[in-house]
């Protein structure tokens, strides 16, 4: 069973207009790779040229910040939910 990836509308345009995606992978990094392979424009918004997460785009795996786990190396279970939260500042 794949992982559900939720991205905000601000990134959806780089992903065919969809905010919900399904992808498979053993780690968060693998899941991000799988999404990026489908939507190259989105990949660049999710990680830097070295493949590392940006400090201003946070990934929550089942509501837990992956930075306090193993980052992109954090293992993902089938059916998990990955939520991508970029910094926003509007008011």
């Amino acid at each position: 069973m794949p992982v559900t990836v939720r991205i905000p509308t601000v990134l959806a345009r780089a992903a065919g207009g969809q905010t919900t995606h399904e992808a498979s992978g053993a780690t968060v990094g693998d899941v991000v790779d799988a999404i990026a392979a489908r939507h190259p424009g989105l990949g660049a918004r999710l990680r830097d040229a070295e493949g590392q997460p940006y400090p201003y785009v946070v990934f929550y795996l089942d509501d837990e910040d992956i930075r306090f786990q193993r980052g992109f190396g954090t293992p993902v279970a089938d059916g998990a939910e990955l939520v991508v939260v970029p910094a926003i500042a509007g008011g």
Partner: protein
Amino acid sequence: MPLGRPDAALPQLSQEEILRYGRHLIIPDVGVTGQRRLKDARVLMVGAGGLGSPIGLYLAAAGVGTLGIVEFDTVAETNLQRQILHGTKDVGRKKLDSARDRIHDVNPNVKVVGYDTRLDASNALDLVRGYDLVVDGTDNFAARYLTNDACVLLGKPNVYGSIFRFEGQASVFCTKDGPCFRCLHRDPPPPGAIPSCAEGGVLGVLPGLLGTIQATEAVKLITGIGQPLVGRLLLVDALQMSFRTVKLRRDPDCPACGKRTITSLVEYTELCGLTSHADDSDVPTIEPAELEERIRRGDAIDLIDVREPNEWEIGRIDGARLAPIDRFAEALSTVDLQRDVVVYCKVGGRSARAVRQLQAAGFTRVWNLAGGIERWSEEIDPTVPRY
């Protein structure tokens, strides 16, 4: 634990106040003591715009005794779609003046203290020091980091909310044991990485939704009731109408509240968030008057509008063609090598990126229209609507 002074030191309520706040007083969790806490409370609002509007209105209506407001801006037409503190008659007035009038109309018991200034590293500590808590209704990263760091240094709770298009975030930072904004995002994103509401737009009711949540959290902190949004980040998606919270942890390595390596305020440039433009000073520009002159004398110019189709629909410069910036690479092959190229967008940021792409593709006779279609409308053709 409520904020502020011990019960015995709280001010009494007048008969008029007892009547006004009756619907609070009959909630056992608030009661007379809670209302006296609200009357005694000093809340600093940073910003009286989209978020600050519901924050100010509801905190005033709730009976917060002192509302400090930091705001340097004046009311513009484009504010009225969401900034409900201000009305059509206020366009051109200082937001502070219009906010004060409106708040006093809602509740004349509230003392409004206005600070006609931008929050900066030189004044933030002095502004925050005199208040019990801060509500962050700013619209840019620079002010958010300043607000956060000042709150960490002074030990004041920071009720955070931010919005973009259809989505918002809220949390309560800088409580004694909770995380701060830097635990979430240690450093601001580089200019250009995140679009601002001025560029990306925002649904008018969205700040209403998030600002009301911030006001709710402020009232809860003051009265000491409920579970504050500490250690949780609320994510609101108005399109899906979904609310979810993710866990926020205090980062032991956080330079503000963890390792405490930030011991004084750091000033970020206005570029961070106020506008999404990178440094475009080396991009060749053409003034609106010069472009108009060149069009009038019939020069061969490929005039390219790099905004989105919905912006093009609002209005455009005669003779232009549309090639949105996100798909500009595909349009490069259509650019005429024989003609001079002028690109424009709303105010000049996106078109500067287009100029760079054209230069990288080998075009040398390329200019960015200074100030975009906004200056064109102001200086050349007022029939082009501003937005």
